[in-house]
């Protein structure tokens, strides 16, 4: 494979009720999800199907009409129900104390960008809709990963991989890549240490939002003792054929080039691991400490020690992977490599070359550099120390989802950050599913047969049909089936869910 692979991202948004720091974040998150769900769902809302293996009768439990209750009346159990599927195939729900958008399954890095950016617009719309509820207080949403007071929340990536690949090989070759990729994918952060209070040596800025929150190299946890390589193994596909690599150490990016390179370069490295192409051992000594040390040095001069004794900067380590990837693509595809694979390689090389020369040359492409440049300009103009609240505010407000308030959005609108997609393309993806995965089937069903869809999940759509005693579950276990090519014409032709289910089960 190339950069093409079944992929998706999940972003938990920071949330605050304006002027009410002690407001219950679960209630606020539920208000966000419910506001979006009730104003976009034309009919009843399809539930998320948690129990894919349970008998159909059980699924009826999710099929209850849900009133928009006064938030104060909602119990935790009720709040757990704020969980909907969108017509673009995504899932919008409350995860712990944050609203979360899980993108539909896509197959290219540019589509990762497209449906993740669509999620930002969903959150923006949701917050505007929630604000229209009489008596409500505005809820602010941030696409970031920490409150700088010890709490961190995730922006996870998912990559479908071959089950046959040895997990030990994934750990061996992916760990050095993850230690170093933050120089491309970091979102930038004012503050050192989990609570942001380590101000020794006037270090105030670091490359990654997340690096200080990782404590072990490999593990199952996501909320404490976070591992660089997460071992969660829920493929949402045939487990005999696939594993889903769940990546939890990435930052929530706003810059499209950052998102694009994050998924594109990671997909390339995974392809090389699957094909046993990586012939060198780039293992690093003390991966957890190296991850932090790299993040803490925005000059990019920190030297990571490899197990073989070599000492390389993070950029040089990335260049090793780039070199391998170039050879891999040449070896497997030659001049037949697809456009995005060629583009990812070219951009990756361009960015690394300039990062090595002067990181500031990447200020129009990468989040952490754009943020650092802005912070430096403020420091130069106003003589601010890194502990100044204004710099912390700039860090926070960079991630505000509102186009008028969010500093990323202001920079992008002023042409200071490169865009890969136009607004119309992203807006369409708020409603339209990708056409080349099962998300197409899920999204089209939600759009066309909303009244008849009782529940859905990554691997099923469950219909409640008139005249049928039991719910009808249509499994979608293969992520690459249920595409427009497979079912587009069928859905076009079937005016009702009954007709669709009859045609599928005939």
């Amino acid at each position, binding site marked *: 494979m190339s950069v093409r692979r079944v992929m998706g991202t999940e972003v938990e948004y920071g949330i605050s009720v304006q002027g009410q720091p002690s407001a219950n974040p679960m209630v606020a998150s539920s208000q966000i999800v419910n506001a979006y769900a009730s104003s976009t769902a034309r009919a009843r809302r399809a539930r998320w199907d948690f129990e894919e293996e349970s008998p159909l009768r059980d699924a009826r439990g999710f099929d209850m009409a849900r009133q928009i209750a006064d938030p104060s009346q909602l119990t935790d159990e009720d709040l757990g129900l704020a969980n909907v599927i969108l017509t673009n195939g995504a899932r919008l729900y409350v995860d712990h104390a944050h609203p979360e958008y899980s993108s539909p399954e896509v197959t290219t890095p540019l589509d990762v960008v497209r449906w993740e950016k669509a999620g930002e617009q969903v959150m923006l719309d949701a917050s505007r809709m929630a604000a229209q509820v009489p008596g409500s207080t505005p809820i602010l949403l941030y696409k970031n990963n920490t*409150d700088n007071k010890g709490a961190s*929340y995730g922006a996870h990536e998912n990559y479908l991989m071959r089950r046959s690949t040895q997990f030990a090989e994934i750990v061996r070759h992916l760990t050095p890549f993850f230690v170093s990729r933050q120089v491309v994918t970091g979102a930038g952060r004012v503050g050192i240490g989990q609570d942001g209070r380590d101000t020794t040596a006037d270090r105030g800025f670091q490359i990654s939002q997340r690096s200080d929150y990782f404590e072990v190299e490999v593990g199952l946890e996501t909320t404490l003792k976070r591992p660089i390589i997460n071992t969660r193994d829920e493929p949402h596909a045939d487990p005999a054929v696939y594993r889903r690599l769940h990546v*939890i150490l990435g930052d929530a990016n706003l810059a499209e080039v950052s998102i694009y390179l994050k998924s594109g370069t990671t997909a390339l490295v995974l392809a090389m691991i699957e094909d046993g192409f990586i012939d060198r051992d780039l293992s690093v000594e003390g991966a957890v400490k190296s991850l932090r040390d790299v993040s803490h040095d925005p000059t990019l001069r920190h030297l990571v020690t490899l197990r073989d004794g070599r000492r390389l900067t993070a950029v040089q380590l990335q260049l090793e992977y780039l070199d391998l990837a170039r050879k891999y693509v040449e070896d497997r595809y030659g001049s037949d490599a697809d456009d995005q694979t060629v583009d990812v390689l070219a951009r990756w090389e361009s960015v690394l070359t300039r990062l090595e020369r002067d990181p500031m040359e990447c200020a129009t492409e990468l989040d952490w550099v754009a943020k650092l440049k802005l912070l430096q*300009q403020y420091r130069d103009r106003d003589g601010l120390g890194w502990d100044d609240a204004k710099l912390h505010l700039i860090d926070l407000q960079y991630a505000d989802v509102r186009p008028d308030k969010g500093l990323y959005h*202001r920079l992008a609108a002023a042409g200071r950050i490169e865009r890969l997609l136009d607004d119309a393309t992203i807006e369409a993806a708020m409603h339209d599913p990708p056409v080349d995965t099962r998300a197409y089937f899920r999204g089209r069903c939600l759009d066309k047969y909303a009244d008849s869809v009782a529940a859905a999940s990554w691997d099923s759509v469950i219909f409640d049909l008139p005249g049928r005693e039991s719910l009808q579950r249509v499994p979608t276990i293969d992520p690459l089936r249920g595409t427009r090519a497979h079912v587009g014409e069928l859905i076009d032709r079937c005016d009702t869910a009954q007709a669709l289910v009859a045609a599928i089960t005939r």
Partner: protein
Amino acid sequence: MAQEQKQPRKSSQEESATEEVVETDVAERKEMIDEDVDAILDEIDEVLETNAEDFVKSFIQKGGE
């Protein structure tokens, strides 16, 4: 050394003229960049939340994931 002698030598007048042009260029560019930076910072000043300290302090999250 022989090669160097083949290079046409600029007169000292020409040299200083060139340097002046370069210096003016740099100064002009720096001025433009400064104005550019001022413009974006002014724009951002206008949208930054008021009372940075309170705003940052009140952004308290629970962990997620």
